[in-house]
């Protein structure tokens, strides 16, 4: 009997989980998740499902009266319309506050449905041995459980017919037996490194920083869930840039001027020191309000990108946030310099974040194309 109710419970959870999945996106918008490690659980509220029945509507929609008991006089007001609940309903309904625990990685999977994974190219020398999950090929040896009966019988029949002693009985001998087996596969190791870069200067408000961090947090979560061999580096900058740890990246508060060139300089330095572009797929995600110190610095940035970065990387994603004070013109300059509007194959992808709702859109802009 225990099995019986467990079966029903599992089925219900399967059904409700599919519905709850849709809500995960709402959970994504919450800033408080940011910086949590993978493997942590996220609480997402879920619904009960009611079977439809031909029943009366609630008394509010023209229902009849209820019966109550206690010290009351005719005309006493029991509930105001704002309160909503009619006393007869109280206590019947189960508490609505039930939560389902979801792995962060499950949310990441949900994301993957809408986004395309970056096309990480096989680079590097090592090959990883792996076996496919399905029994794909046939072998002459194997455990009896994986015996391929049809093939075995065919072989036995062939042998039997060829031997001219065919009597109508076909008994397979050892040589006839065929077994299903896993097909060994060699897949090339895919190395990828992602540089998360963020402007933490004074011109970036708290809100803009939150957007940037939310965006980069989800990208981080999603990619690290999909690629086992993925390295992440975090760089922040104001007038100068420095590398930080993951925790620091999501929590650092700083202020100061903005020199965008500094962060790319730092990135190029780390990249050329630690990662050989021949062996690594390199991705850059950069968030800023685009309000650079001066035009000279913008030109300097482009010079660095042209010389040291663009030839070696797979993609540069740039998300520009908009604050109350407007948005900087780095995005405009970037678009002009690389002629992005007319060049759909460019390695540089840009997006704009104007509100919290745009984060999902920004992820689509950056990763929807599968670069």
């Amino acid at each position: 009997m225990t099995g019986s109710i467990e079966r029903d419970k599992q089925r219900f959870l399967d059904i409700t989980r599919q519905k709850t999945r849709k809500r995960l996106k709402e959970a994504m918008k919450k800033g408080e998740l940011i910086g949590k490690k993978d493997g942590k659980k996220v609480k997402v509220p879920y619904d009960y499902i009611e079977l439809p029945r031909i029943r009366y509507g609630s008394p509010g929609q023209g229902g009849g009266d209820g019966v109550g008991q206690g010290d009351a006089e005719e005309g006493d007001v029991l509930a105001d319309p704002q309160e909503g609940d009619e006393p007869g309903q109280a206590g019947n309904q189960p508490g609505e506050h039930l939560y389902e625990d979801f792995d962060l990685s499950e949310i990441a999977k949900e994301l993957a449905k809408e986004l395309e994974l970056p096309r990480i190219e096989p680079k590097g020398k090592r090959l990883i041995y792996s076996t496919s999950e399905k029994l794909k090929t046939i072998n002459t040896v194997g455990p009896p459980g994986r015996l391929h009966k049809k093939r075995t019988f065919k072989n036995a029949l062939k042998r039997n017919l060829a031997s001219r002693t065919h009597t109508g009985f076909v008994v397979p001998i050892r040589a006839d037996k065929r077994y299903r087996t896993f097909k060994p596969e060699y897949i090339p190791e895919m190395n990828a490194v992602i540089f998360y870069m963020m402007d933490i200067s004074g011109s970036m408000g708290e809100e803009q920083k939150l957007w940037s961090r939310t965006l980069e947090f989800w990208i981080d979560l999603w990619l690290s869930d999909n690629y086992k061999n993925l390295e992440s580096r975090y760089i922040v900058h104001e007038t100068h840039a420095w590398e930080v740890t993951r925790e620091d990246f999501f929590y650092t508060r700083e202020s100061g001027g903005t020199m965008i060139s500094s962060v790319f300089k730092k990135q190029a330095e780390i990249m050329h020191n630690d990662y050989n572009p021949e062996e690594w797929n390199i991705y850059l995600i950069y968030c800023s309000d685009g309000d650079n110190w001066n035009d000279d610095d913008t030109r300097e940035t482009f010079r660095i990108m042209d010389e040291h970065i663009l030839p070696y990387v797979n993609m540069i994603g740039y998300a520009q946030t908009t604050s109350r004070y407007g948005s900087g013109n780095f995005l405009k300059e970037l678009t002009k310099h690389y002629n992005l509007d007319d060049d759909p194959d460019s390695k540089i992808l840009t997006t704009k974040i104007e509100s919290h709702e745009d984060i999902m859109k920004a992820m689509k802009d950056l990763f929807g194309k599968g670069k």
Partner: protein
Amino acid sequence: MNAEPITPEIEVERQKIEKRAKELGLDPFDTVFHMVDYKDMIQLMCYTGFPRRINHWSYGMHSIIYENQYRYGLMKVYELVINSDPAHAYLLKNNNLLEQKFVIGHVYAHVDFFKNNLWFKPTNRNMVSEMAWHAERADKMRKMYGDEEVEKFVDICMSLDTLIDPYSLFYNTEFESISDRVKETMKGREQPRLIKTGNPFLDRLVNNNEYRRKEMRRILKEEKARRKFPRKLQKDVVKFLIDNAKYMNHNLETWKVDMLEMFRDEFYYFAPQRLTKIMNEGWASYWHYKLMAEEGFAGNDGIFEFAKIHSGVVPLDRQQPGPINPYSLGLQLYRWIEHRWDTGKHGLDYDKCDSLEKKLNWDTRDMKGREKIFQVRKYYNDLLFLSEFMDQDFVDEHKLWTYGYDEFGRVIVKSKDVEPVRQALVNSIYNGGEPLVYVKDGNFNNKGELLLYHDFDFTGKMLDIEKTLKVMRNIRSIWGRDVSIETKLPIQDKDGDIAGYADARLMCTEKSYVFYIFDEDGDVVEEREVEW
């Protein structure tokens, strides 16, 4: 499940209680008591006490709800008892001895009610194995026709459980099916009845053309009336579907009809419990109180704890005004009846008496109260119970009133008179508190469509349209053709308030719902189509 027999300590008490209960007049089935832990108890609750039922996710959902309520201390379970012979009762392991004693008394009263109440007489007393058998068959169907397909159909069946006729338990309802109708039609048209004269000359005079025409008109008229199918409104919609859907929907597999029949059996098994909820719980509460407090099973040291439990189960007089607890209503009414028949406060003499003082001190020392409540337990259901014994004195003494919405949308106390109180209670229990829905026409529009009819005027309450449409969609998938329902929809005035109700027909077609709203002459004034 790890059901254990009850401990020797409780067994001693059980024997004492059973003996005393039988001396006092209770007549229960033999009852098997089991001890279970709370997890098993929750499982049993989800399956309404049965070890096995047809698997469905909704039971799983309830188990999650109950588990959570239990964890947060919102729910206290004492017992579960199944109507069968012998009866099975489940006790919770970690309740203390006093609680167990109180529960055993409670259970014996329930079992007595199951055995003796007239409305339980036709129920299947072997439902435990019947349900397990149903589950087994459903599992077999799952194997044969696929999990998803069967689950979808179980969803449909479970949404039909309000569409039976609980009051039909006693009259042998013979339902006409389409095949009977076809046989009848095959016989051909009835010949005009001629008057026998025995004389050819007279014959031509008496059975003249005018007479023959008159006869023909009568025959055609009767035929037209007979063409209605079903002839009367049929309350048991599920039975109607079982009997006739296979003729209308040739894609309806046989296993689906089987499944419907299994579910109908289960619906009817639970129907009497819905009809006697107030009486049944009231009866059990009456007896556990009698045994524990008056017969002294609680003991001197346990009486306070018992009082606490008792008032938790049946709170008698509420401090805060609020909705009534039907269980305590039952208990109060039994006591009221007992008091009236003990003192003779009933009958013509008492009703005719004008003097208030005389009425108050009325006491004929009849002492027929016990006898009367046993009689009530045997022959009544909730509907009769409330409508016969609830009077103005009772309503006054127990401070009952009706509440409802006023024109500002506030919930107010409306009336303290017995009539509205009784009406509101009857509305909430007649037909188990569910809307009255009938099959009106099985050949609607002469296209084999199904027409249901909701008796709106009986309670004046509106259907939950959204859910009704979903159920109609389910019925449509069984019937195979369009399904309509006649009901009433509110007319809104300029301010958006409800000005009145208009006749309406909701139709469920293959891809959409169609709403027809009629005016008083029966003409369509509004037609609206909504996609599913």
